[in-house]
């Protein structure tokens, strides 16, 4: 009998010894954060802007695409490439509320209902929340080795940089442009920095508070990343990217000294500008390997959103006409066919057609880019020319006009045909206008124009607010290519619609949150009798 007991005991012992980590938590693919490496992986997976596929307006998963449609860079195609075969383009409808500066961005073209308005808002706050959690978690992970310490600094720096960038993006869409005299009372966006759920109704912080937070984060990022070396690719932020964003933020805050100082730091670190004279035909001026590229995140839907079709969008004449004929950007940035001006800032996918063919845009950009990831973003992109422009602008306001002209002309030299006269010699307000004009040309469709228009209006030195006009076409039916009429919308100088309304879903949920009051958008109707 005793043997039996012995046997049972032996079996039990075998069991217990065999399963020392029997209760160790198991999951197929989920895990806890143990080291900075895990957070580093999470940065790519959940904190940097997702790399969306290039898609048509109706389909794009890019939630910030509307930025290009607010200003004066895009307009609706007056006609399609081929009336007989090309059908109308996919759903411009989604952009209507933004493009025509409606009281609610989701307004549909028949004013009968609303599209979703909070896609951008939700996505950005989602990314901010991941940044909050990474910042919280990086204090908990191991700091034992030197590698760990550097790793934690890197992760912490990038997360602070991203959080700053996201708040900067939000406050410039949903808050008034930074005006040093009113920023303390102007409403910006809610700030949430904690890692846990706050189950409450949020209220908006002031523009000043948001900018202060941005600077706190960026200073932290700068101090962290200055100890970690250069990033592995342009898709990861290093200290230069942080300083770049600092110079841009100070420029927006009209802190010219700091803007110039940080722009100079960026130029020192990354002085190269690509000469367009040396650029091979059909290779595009924007790429990740370009010597100008400092940082990029997110996708680029412009090759698909602009197209030579009915109900498509194209580059506006007013933008195209800014460029001198000697300015190489006029032919390298854009493709021109009859009245159509297309986007060619990135390289075509194939070169099956020649650029003089009316199908060039379709077969080399729209169709092949559909469902593809572009190399660089059309919104979250840092390039060295901008540092020169910031430097020029800041120095001009500071009265150091020589420095301003030098910075400006350094850029222009690389943009004009060899031997042509590129030099700017003006001063005072003319110089500032020349710099603003240069920004418009150099940074066209990089997601900056709308923000620039806003800040020029509150610039203490040379305030200037533009009047914008957009036309929206109506067709016989949803499948017809026959236009019946167009409506003309005007955004007046200093119009309240220079600030986007807070998404209705957010207002609905957060009881008590104040919205931006926009005027009812009126329009004039022009009938077309084709």
């Amino acid at each position, binding site marked *: *009998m005793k043997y*039996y*007991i012995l046997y*049972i005991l032996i*079996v*039990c012992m075998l*069991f217990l010894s065999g*399963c020392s980590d*029997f*209760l*160790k*938590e*198991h*999951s*197929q*693919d*989920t*895990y*806890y*954060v143990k080291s900075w490496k*895990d957070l580093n*992986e*999470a940065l*790519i*997976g*959940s904190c940097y802007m997702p*790399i969306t596929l290039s898609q048509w307006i109706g389909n794009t998963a890019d939630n910030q695409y509307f930025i290009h449609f607010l200003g004066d860079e895009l307009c609706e195609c007056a006609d399609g490439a081929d009336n007989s075969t090309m059908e109308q383009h996919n759903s411009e409808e989604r952009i209507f509320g933004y493009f025509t500066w409606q009281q609610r961005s989701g307004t549909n073209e*028949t*004013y*009968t*209902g609303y599209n979703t308005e*909070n896609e951008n808002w*939700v996505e950005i*706050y*989602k*990314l*901010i*929340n*991941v940044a*909050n*959690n990474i910042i919280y*978690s990086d204090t908990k992970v191991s700091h034992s080795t030197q590698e760990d310490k550097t790793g934690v600094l890197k992760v912490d720096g990038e997360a602070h940089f991203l959080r700053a960038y996201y708040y900067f993006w939000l406050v410039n869409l949903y808050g008034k442009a930074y005006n040093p005299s009113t920023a303390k009372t102007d409403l910006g966006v809610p700030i*949430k920095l904690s*890692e*846990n*759920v*706050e*189950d*409450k*109704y*949020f209220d908006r912080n002031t523009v000043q508070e948001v900018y202060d937070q941005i600077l706190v984060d960026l200073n932290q990022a700068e101090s962290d990343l200055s100890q970690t070396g250069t990033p*592995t*690719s342009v*898709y*990861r932020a290093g200290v230069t990217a942080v300083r770049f964003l600092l110079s841009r933020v100070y420029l927006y805050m009209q802190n010219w000294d700091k803007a110039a100082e940080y722009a100079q730091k960026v130029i020192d670190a990354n002085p190269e500008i690509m000469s367009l004279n040396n650029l091979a035909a059909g290779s595009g001026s924007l790429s990740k390997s370009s010597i100008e590229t400092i940082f990029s995140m997110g996708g680029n839907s412009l090759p698909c959103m602009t197209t030579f079709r009915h109900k498509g969008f194209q580059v506006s004449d007013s933008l195209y006409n800014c460029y001198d004929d000697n300015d190489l950007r006029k032919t390298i940035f854009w493709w021109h066919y009859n009245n159509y001006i297309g986007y060619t800032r990135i390289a075509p996918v194939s070169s099956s057609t020649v650029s003089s063919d009316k199908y060039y845009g379709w077969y080399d950009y729209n169709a092949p880019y559909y*469902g593809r990831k572009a190399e660089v973003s059309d919104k979250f992109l840092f390039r060295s020319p901008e540092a020169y422009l910031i430097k020029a602008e800041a120095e001009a306001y500071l009265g150091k006009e020589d420095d301003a002209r030098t910075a400006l002309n350094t850029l222009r030299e690389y943009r004009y045909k060899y031997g042509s006269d590129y030099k700017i010699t003006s001063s005072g307000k003319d110089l500032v206008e020349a710099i603003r004009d240069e920004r418009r040309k150099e940074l066209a469709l990089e997601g900056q124009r709308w923000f620039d228009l806003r800040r020029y209006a509150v610039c203490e030195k040379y305030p200037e607010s533009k009047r914008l006009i957009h036309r929206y076409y109506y067709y016989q039916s949803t499948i017809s290519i026959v236009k019946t009429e167009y409506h003309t919308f005007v955004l007046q100088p200093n119009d309240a619609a220079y600030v986007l309304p807070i998404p209705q*879903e*957010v207002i609905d*949920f*957060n009881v008590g949150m104040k919205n931006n009051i926009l005027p009812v958008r009126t329009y004039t109707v022009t009938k077309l009798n084709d």
Partner: protein
Amino acid sequence: MVERQAGVSITYQSNVVNRKLRLHLSLYNATLERALNEICEQAELEYSLRDNYVLIRKKHEVHAERKVVESQQSQISQLAQEVRYRTVKGVVVDDKEQPLAGVSVFVAGEHRCVITDDSGNFVIRVKEGPVKLMLTYIGMRGRSVLVRSGNENAGEIVLHEDASKVGEVVVTGYQQIDRRNLTSSVTSMNMDDLMIPGVSSLDQMLQGRIPDMIVTNSSGEINSVPNIRIRGTSTLIGNREPLWVVDGVIVNNPVNLSADVLNDPDYINRIGNAISGLNPQDIDRLDVLKDAAATALYGTRAANGVIVITTKKGRVGKPIVAYNFNGSFRRRPYYTDNKINLMNSKERTEISRELVSQHYEFPSDMTSIGYEDAIQKYYSGVYTESEFKKQVAKYETQNTDWFKLLCHNSFSADHSVNISGGTDKLRYYASLGYTNDDDVINNNSNERYTVNSNMDFTLSKNFQASLNLNAYSNKKKYNQSNINPIDYAYNTSRVIHAYNDNGTYYYYNKEASGGYNYKYNILNELDNSYTKQNVTSITATSNLRYHPAEWLNIEGVLSYTNSNANIEGWWGEKSWYASTLRGSEDGVTAPNWSDMPYGGELSHNTTHSESYMARLQANFNKYFGSNKQHNINIAIGSEVNSTRYNGFNIENRGYYLDRGEKFAISIPTNYTAYYQWLAGNIPTITDNITHLLSAYGTLTYSYKNYFTINSNTRYDGSNKFGSRSNEKILPVWSISGLVDLRNVFNIKTKWLNNLSLKSSYGEQGNMIDGQTSEMTLSKGTVNTYYNELYSTVSAFANPYLKWEKTHSLNVGLEASLFNNRFMLLCEYYAKRTTNAFMNKNISDINGYTSYVVNSGSISNNGYNVSFTAVPISNSNINWILSGSFSKVIDKMDAAPGVDAYSLDDYLNGNAIVKGKPVSTFYSYKFVGLDTEDGGPLFDDWEDRCTELIGLSKSDTYNKVLVVSGRRDPDISGSISNTLSYKSWRLGVMMNYSLGAKVRLFRIYSQTSSGSSTPGCIYPEYNLNRALLNRWKKPGDELHTNIPSIINKEDVNYYKYSSNYSSESSEYSGVKIADNSWNMYDYSDIRVVSADYLRIANVSLTYELSRKFLDKYKFHRIAFTLSGSNLYSFCARALKGQTPTQSGFAEVQLSDTPIYTFGVNLEF
């Protein structure tokens, strides 16, 4: 010993009791009275029982004179050595004519006893003259037989199973508890009482049989598995299915299905559940554990109740081979069934003709077919007038019998053989089963092989071991999930023919997405598709029991299961489905945007699961006290459980089944869409391991026979990721008690055999997956854009989440009357789930919009009454009548998020609404028909829609929609009758359900998916006969509520084609409806009661007589004829639509009658 067990003190005079007398007693779980009766009868003593004192006296002291004399005479004759003996032989069988081995046979008044042999035979030496033989056997009612003098053969003595005896012991999987000490709520059933011939799985036999357990069959298909809910629903997000336990071991589903899939009332589970591989013939008994006290030992997994199955074991005796055959006939649906209220060709053509004559504008996406097609051809000059008339005449008489084409009357067979027997050392039971179920739906079948063997060894006096082996292979075949032949037959116009005149398939064009049309014939579609499923599984369980002392018993269990499930889905290249992917008809070269340029589609879903369990348990059972009145019973144990599921899922295209099961190779690269699909077609692998290490304990204290209290607790440690079960002890405990009212109040009434009251209270906790106290990441692979490995955030921390807790109270009253001829059990329970998990909406500024909080609360009360009566019981006739009644009252006490549920959820009963039971559904409020055009009118708040602006979804729907009732019944039960007369046995089982509501099948949205233009009449669809009675002219609204068919061209059409809430620019509130036709189908007048009383089963068994059997050396031959689902009494408004089948989703096959013939042979 009697004192210890029963907690009484026994007094006797020492000279009275013969200490040398050794009695053969076969008493197991007997009552005190019975024990004393037996003892005294054998020892010629007499006793009296008062309070807790037993006084034992010599029998003749108070007995009748005659007996004294008799006894004296026998003493005298013994003394005189004149006693003459004779032998009496006989055979003992049970009420199924099965010989009983091991029955104790005594001669009354003597202490001699023999035991029957394997064939039930006994021979006993008795004195001359008439003698009385006493027969006792565990689980059988004792019997005495008078053998007259000179009679040497007592013949066949039938012992009847004691109806009360099934419940004498309760099997909980961890313990066997004497029912008299059972403090919790457990229903025990003998498999013989549950068995429905022709049904191949146990779960399908349970409908209405167990109080407080609701079994719903979502479809009458043979492969579908019913939903089982014990005592209502007590969790919102978690799993609601009970736990299955076979011979003490928890069994798992072959495929891991998520809780929300299983909780969906419209989901039809064809994959099978944990017990699909168990042959009902191998099952001995079933115990359903319902309250907290009963399930506490199983921990959190048992929150929805536990169903414990015990399989058959061998008995000591010569090997007995039994063969069982059941042949079942299932009847297919017919158009003539009252169930199907559909138009025939003539009626359908008449409607078409009427519509055409009214210049009805047909929807643009219609298929041109039937009368509409003929008249179009006539107008366009293709047909002459005579050709047209001929064609129409043909259509009118076409009457395609879709049910005949898609279904057949089927025959299923079920064979099983088992062999059982044993010796003192080894008892065995081994069986082999084969089931071949053929469904009435063509090509749907279920084939199953089962092997089962149970061996029990007695190694020594203190050691016992058993080894069980169970293996099965289950092959199922059913349709691809997007073809539903019954739905098709129901909805397709009978004008359409299936075959051309030359016998080939007739195809019509069916629209696919994107406006393309491809030829379609349902028969071709079925020929070119299938879902095949193969599940194989083997389980081995060994059990070792050691009892070193009488009060101690140690048990070790080891069990291992390995199972494989393989599901294969195929679409052939000739199918319409393949055409839609290909973008061209079969045989036509695919365009370059094709998603499947060549061949068909083959999907493979493999799940391999492996689990083991080891348990060590010690049971202490001791009596204390001066009079041994205290009994303490303790069981403690620990258990290790491990379950691993490995899944692999892949879909392939370019497959040719009939070309040697090969795939197309070298598909040209210009098929960019295909290659894009291929790039995204990544196989998914799932690997899910669950480890549990548990310790549990139970303590029971009984004081005499008066009361019992019991408490249970369990601790589980698990490897569940992210869940906090490792951090805190699981709150699982229960206490319960039992009071024997008869003893406590000293009720002496003769007719009352037992009256006891029991009660239990317990708490169970629950935690859901994916909730974590710190942020978790999910591993991604390589982000090729960054060229780095990446991870995504899987879950953010939810550090303040607490356990979901269910408190439950159970009160039961059990009475047994008239010598146990009538037994009654009433139970009441109240369950309250607090801190129930719910998704709460939060501001999106948090980065996400909802998180799980403990804000839910559900109360769930109910009661049940069940009884068993034996009105007649004698040697010829035995009648057992039993019935049950259960009622559940459940209510949601806390409001979920205001936008948590959509309109469809409200209409379909998936929404959880505060103050309403789970499964409540809503309808539109119908107010009548328009007097001008006969269109349906609803109270949709259009006139006061301003009041709705700004309201949330839940507020809007609660205002506008009306509550129609609940989908699940709140009252259910059964009545069953078993009447035996000589060799005949008749069983009638009826079950009923009350309180559920059902929606009539839709009449205006003609397909289950909803036609693109509701309210329009599509020529390809059949129509409900109700439309014959529709509004046609003003005044009709007085006697019909079926709306008219309104032409698109009609000036009033716009009134119905879109609801104000979906179109109006002024209204900015929540959308209420799309159009009036849809609203009509979902309106309150289309809701009827689903109450029913169903004749679930009638069976008649004939047993061949002993005489005949002996001649041919058989033990038993029995024939059974049975019919299941014979008839349902239900609301007339259902027009025959089965009450369990509602129009919520697709039309499914309702329960069809099954007629079964069975043979049982034993030799």
